[in-house]
């Protein structure tokens, strides 16, 4: 103790940096700064346009504070009804499709070729934003809610089947072996050893996906796949901000309501 004190009366302390290597650390900081500078530099800002826009923004806010539910009520009604029914049908269809695909995408129970196909479907579904998928379905089925239903059902697969497959891959293998040992076939093994372990979470996730589908059903209309989205876009094109405001309020309320309900359901399931 005495020697330490005489040789160095004060020991310095600094918090050790997150990345020990000084070059790497400063390199990363520099790289981030350069990227930020380039990215911000590449954003072209037309200040004259924004100045004009702000004035319009002012009018917009004024209109938003006085939502007009009345003048386009028929359009709104049709759009909302379409969004809601699309959500219901697409969620049900999506869940029904997700179960077999999720089973097929679980490495511990599916043969390799099926595994690869199912994983492929999931990857495609997850990669493309709903609107991109909607474009393809609109080409196939024409404008209207059917394309929207297919879009949302397909998007549901990417979400639900993936999580289901991950759940199945993590199940306790002991019951699986036990049921297999009784001589049960594949389907019986699935119903007795796999589904009981994952079904509660599957229901919870389906309810959660219902929320997401409702939110997404409001935008696929922008490419003509039905729902409230096309009505909303039309109001913007006509500068009917007070109607747009009414639609937005309806969307927000619906999303909040379903979220509350689904949270309640999920709480009960646990």
């Amino acid at each position, binding site marked *: *103790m005495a020697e330490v004190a005489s040789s160095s009366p*004060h*020991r*310095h*302390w*600094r*918090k*050790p940096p997150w990345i020990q290597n000084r070059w790497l650390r400063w390199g990363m900081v520099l790289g981030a700064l350069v990227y930020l500078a380039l990215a911000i530099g590449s954003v072209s800002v037309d200040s004259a346009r924004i100045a004009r826009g702000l004035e319009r923004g002012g009018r917009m806010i004024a209109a938003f504070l006085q939502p007009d539910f009345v003048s386009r009520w028929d359009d709104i009604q049709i759009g909302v009804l379409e969004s809601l029914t699309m959500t219901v049908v697409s969620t049900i269809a999506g869940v029904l499709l997700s179960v077999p695909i999720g089973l097929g995408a679980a490495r511990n129970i599916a043969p390799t070729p099926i595994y690869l196909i199912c994983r492929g479907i999931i990857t495609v579904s997850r990669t493309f934003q709903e609107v991109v998928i909607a474009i393809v379905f609109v080409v196939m089925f024409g404008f209207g809610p059917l394309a929207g239903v297919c879009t949302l059902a397909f998007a549901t697969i990417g979400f639900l089947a993936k999580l289901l497959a991950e759940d199945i891959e993590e199940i306790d293998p002991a019951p699986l072996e036990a049921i297999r040992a009784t001589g049960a076939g594949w389907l019986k093994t699935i119903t007795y050893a796999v589904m009981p372990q994952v079904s509660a979470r599957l229901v919870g996730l389906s309810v959660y996906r219902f929320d997401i589908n409702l939110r997404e059903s409001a935008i696929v209309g922008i490419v003509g796949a039905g729902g409230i989205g096309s009505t909303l876009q039309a109001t913007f094109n006509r500068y009917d901000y007070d109607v747009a405001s009414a639609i937005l309020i309806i969307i927000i309320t619906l999303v909040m309501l379903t979220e509350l309900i689904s949270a309640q359901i999920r709480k009960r399931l646990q």
Partner: protein
Amino acid sequence: MLRIEQLVKRYPTGDAALRGVSLTVSEGQVMALIGPSGAGKSTLIRCVNRLVEPTSGKIWLRDTEITALNQRQLRRIRRRIGMIFQEYALVERLSVMENILSGRLGYVNFWQSWFRRFPQSDIDQAFNLLERVGLSDFVDKRADELSGGQRQRVGIARALIQSPDLLLVDEPTASLDPKTSRQIMRLITELARERGLAVIINIHDVPLAQMFVQRIVGLRAGEIVYDGPPDGLTPERLSDIYGAEDWGASQTAVPEQEPLLTAQE
């Protein structure tokens, strides 16, 4: 140095945790607070630094009436009161050094603490304390890499770097094995003696308390039912504190625990 007068704490649920506790602790005195769980031990020491706001009653630390202070004054007085916790209450993702230096937060401004620029005197003290509690090799280890005993040593160092006059210790050994418990109790009482600190230790392990302190206060249902030397805790006294129905258990517990502890040493 610490004077508590007619302290009452009633929780919003209506439960009365303390029903008029009066207590004086003199300079340099180490006092153990025993009693069954729910007796109000935890509430009592948290009222002293007002982590729990008392419902009524007064508390003085030397000449300062703690119960009359505003928030700013309260923060200043808290610097003089160190606290050690049952589950160590370290910030797990911070290093040992940062955890210890957090004891100096009341003395530095926000930006100094944000950039970890503590005065050199604080750093010196931290290194001295680390050496004293035997953790010199753990300076930049994260707190969640330490064992229970090591964590509690960090907790002790964090409390002591405040240069407190009074130490509040809440069940310091409840999460530790018997041997480590003894070492921690010894460390706390030794450090208190070295620095002349007054200490209040909440503890449920009566034999351990008897081994290390000069004064024991028994609390039952929010009231003091015993206040005296450790060897005054007769079976009758214990049954006053822990209740007649619990008594059989603690009577056998005392002789059972003694040989266990000596065997561990």
